[in-house]
């Protein structure tokens, strides 16, 4: 059985560099000295810690609970002691984020796994288990899986897609995972399919992943179709893969469920299996560590491991090369190498040679960016508007539908950092909207303030929330203030005698 293929426009073939890291089986690195768990991930609200400094924690023990519907639970990946909860740099951009830091004791003692769910468990039970186990989308966006399941419980899911289309160059963590844990992925897919009562289920891999395809096909399952899609970047993008496999389009600014689709990454499907059947929370993942190093490959890394630990295990001796978290097309260059691996970290790429970044030339309007855009955006016009600061025009041309896949900048003969311009424009629009909201709130408070003062002057004491200003005798108040001012002046004179500038009030 093969997967359906519908027309899909755009995309570009990029050199793959996959066999640098996908030929060897995955390895487990030695335990790192400490693990770092940022409470906030980039989607949803921060988790609420349930442990404190000094607490002993065991492998699998819950460290933080979801604080809202769109939030995730965190679990210790090995045993140790909570050293502190403090601000720690987290990728991308080394943003200081409140994080739980655990000192690893090296004993790796764990708690008992939860009992597996009965085979006839309903969607609600599966959803609760996924919430409890902290399963989130491991493909990159990190959307909590239980939220997707909830969407599927309340709306009709025609197609469930398990995404093994690892279209970014260099990254092979899903490839290796599929080769080594195909049975669990297929089983996880069946649990997800049952949870949301999906009409059909596709597991898609790329054409040039024959080993992964064979491994998956060795575990045929009722109602699950396993097949390939063309190896064109970015065929693994959510909206692109949905269009490719179902012919349906996710509405602009909409969610896949609006096209009757739920999509999960293959690693997420395996995490679902682990949570539901093995009763284990999500505490580790496959991470590709590749590029300029002696032992590139895939690691079964504990969530929270500092990036530097994996790079050292990979045989990177340091230097002035750039380390990129994620793939070369969409990843972010790291500033600090102490940032932790999170549930969405799929790859650490050391760029083999410092890329010769040519100065950008003027746009020659060749239109290649338009041709490769997987959303059919007019990237050239968007660039012109973004650069000129005409943000309204950029929004009219659907700036916010840009998925920042980088295909346009990849083919640009003028070497213009198009994605950078689009990100800057999006950030500027978001900032303008924040300012606009703040102005509206200021105005509301200002108007209430004015009304209150008017009421005070009219002598209506009941309208004032400030009895001090209206209720009490103003003369008495003034005298009291004068006395207080004297006290402050005396105190100030005693504590800072030479301070002449900031004496008393005029």
């Amino acid at each position, binding site marked *: 059985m093969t997967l359906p293929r519908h027309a899909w426009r755009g995309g570009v073939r990029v050199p793959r560099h996959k066999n640098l890291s996908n030929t060897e089986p995955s390895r487990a690195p030695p335990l790192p000295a400490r693990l770092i768990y940022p409470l906030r991930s980039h989607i949803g609200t921060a988790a609420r810690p349930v442990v404190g400094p000094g607490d002993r924690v065991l492998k699998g023990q819950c460290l933080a609970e979801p604080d809202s519907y769109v939030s995730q639970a965190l679990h210790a990946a090995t045993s140790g002691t909570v050293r502190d909860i403090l601000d720690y740099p987290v990728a991308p951009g080394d943003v200081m984020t409140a994080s739980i830091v655990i000192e690893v004791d090296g004993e790796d003692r764990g708690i008992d796994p939860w009992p597996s769910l009965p085979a006839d468990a309903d969607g609600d039970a599966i959803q609760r288990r996924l919430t409890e186990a902290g399963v989130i989308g491991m493909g990159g966006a990190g959307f909590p899986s239980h939220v997707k399941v909830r969407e599927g419980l309340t709306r009709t899911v025609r197609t469930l897609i398990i995404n093994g289309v690892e279209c970014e160059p260099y990254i092979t963590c899903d490839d290796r995972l599929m080769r080594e844990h195909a049975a669990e992925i297929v089983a996880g897919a069946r649990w997800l399919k049952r949870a949301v009562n999906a009409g059909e289920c596709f597991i898609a891999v790329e054409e040039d992943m024959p080993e992964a395809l064979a491994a998956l096909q060795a575990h045929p399952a009722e109602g699950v179709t396993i097949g390939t899609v063309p190896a064109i970047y970015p065929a693994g993008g959510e909206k692109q893969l949905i269009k490719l496999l179902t012919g349906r389009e996710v509405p602009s600014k909409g969610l896949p469920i609006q096209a009757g689709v739920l999509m999960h990454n293959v690693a997420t499907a395996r995490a679902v299996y682990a949570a539901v059947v093995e009763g284990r929370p999500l505490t580790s993942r496959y991470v590709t560590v590749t590029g300029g190093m002696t032992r590139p490959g895939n690691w079964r890394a504990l969530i929270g491991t500092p990036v530097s630990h994996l790079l050292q295990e990979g045989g990177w001796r340091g230097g002035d090369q750039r380390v*990129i978290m994620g793939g070369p097309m969409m990843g972010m260059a790291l500033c600090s190498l102490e940032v932790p691996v999170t549930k969405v970290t799929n790859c650490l790429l050391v760029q083999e040679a410092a890329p010769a*970044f*040519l100065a950008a*030339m003027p746009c*020659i*309007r060749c239109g290649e960016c338009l041709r490769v855009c997987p959303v059919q955006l*007019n990237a050239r016009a968007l660039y012109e508007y973004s650069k000129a600061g005409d943000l309204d025009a950029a929004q009219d041309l659907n700036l916010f539908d840009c998925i920042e896949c980088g295909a346009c*900048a*990849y083919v640009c*003969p003028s070497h213009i950092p198009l994605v950078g311009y689009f990100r800057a424009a999006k950030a500027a629009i978001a900032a303008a909207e924040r300012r606009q909201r703040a102005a509206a709130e200021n105005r509301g408070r200002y108007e209430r303030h004015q009304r209150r003062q008017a009421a005070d002057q009219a002598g209506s004491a009941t309208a004032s929330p400030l009895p001090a200003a209206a209720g009490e005798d103003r003369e008495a108040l003034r005298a009291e203030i004068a006395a207080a001012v004297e006290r402050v002046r005396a105190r100030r004179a005693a504590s800072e005698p030479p301070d002449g500038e900031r004496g008393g009030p005029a």
Partner: protein
Amino acid sequence: MTTVSSGASSPHLHQATSVALVMRRVLVALVPTLIAMFYCYGPGALMQWLWAILVAHAVEALMLRWRGLPLQPHLSDGSAAVTATLFALAMPPWAPWWLTVLGLVFALALVKHAYGGLGHNLFNPAMGGYVFLLLCFPVAMKAWAPIDAGHAAPGWIESLVRLAGGASSMADGYSGATVLEYTRTQLRAMKMLSEITAQPVYGMLGDRNAQWVNVAALLGGLWLLWTGVIRWQIPVAALAALFLTAAAFHLADGDRYASPLLHLFSGATMPGAFFIATDPITAPGTPRGRLVFGAAVGLLIYLIRTFGNYPDGVAFAVLIMNGAAPLIERHTQPRILGAPA
């Protein structure tokens, strides 16, 4: 104005391509056309080209200095060489040196740099310069091949003398006409097409000389398509529109309207369709926009050739549509993925 520096943002990979590479490929694709020019019109064509290259780079360097831009990488991006080559192909091979200088100064200083330089010009510089000369020096610009086959093309020495301005280009047999102009004047003299085409100025496909130039340009253009430097929409639409219009008129009255084959392989049809109309800077970038643009260029070429006052319409057709390109692009935005149906 926002500025984002290269390398600050993903992607961290880049295709092995550059503006200079694109321009170099265009130049390589023009080599067969240059050889055909040499074959048909003798050394004058080559000298004209070399002179144009020299002048264009001098003008470009001066303009860059004046605008305060570094010569590197702007002078070596190849854009001036492409403009010079297209301009030289359009020039009569025996035009005096100052004509080329005037045309290229107009093309580069006014049409290109006055609008903001590479990437910002509204009109194709080579065609702008050519049309400027055509309007100001109409007689000198007609110094094409001798009409009767008895004359041999001038040799090296004579071509050099003519380029140096030593002989008046319009005084003798070299002030010939191209087949398009000849056909039109003869038709206006109420001759039948069948009589006219018996003249030796006609070749198998079109103009006895220009047909080879057109075949060479077609080959170069196909190579550009294959390498992906240009896309199919503009040349296909332009040639199809020209062919279909010419065919319709020819079928209606075969004695008054020349055959579509003549139109395809005479004048500057092929260089126009593959090298001039496809100039990305002055054409729409959207796929549908390129179809509209190309079709309009093809139609205009036919209308100007047949009903206009100039022998060839390629330059005018392209310039007119250059002006309309932003408008066309605006109204042919592609439907984005997920847009409401």
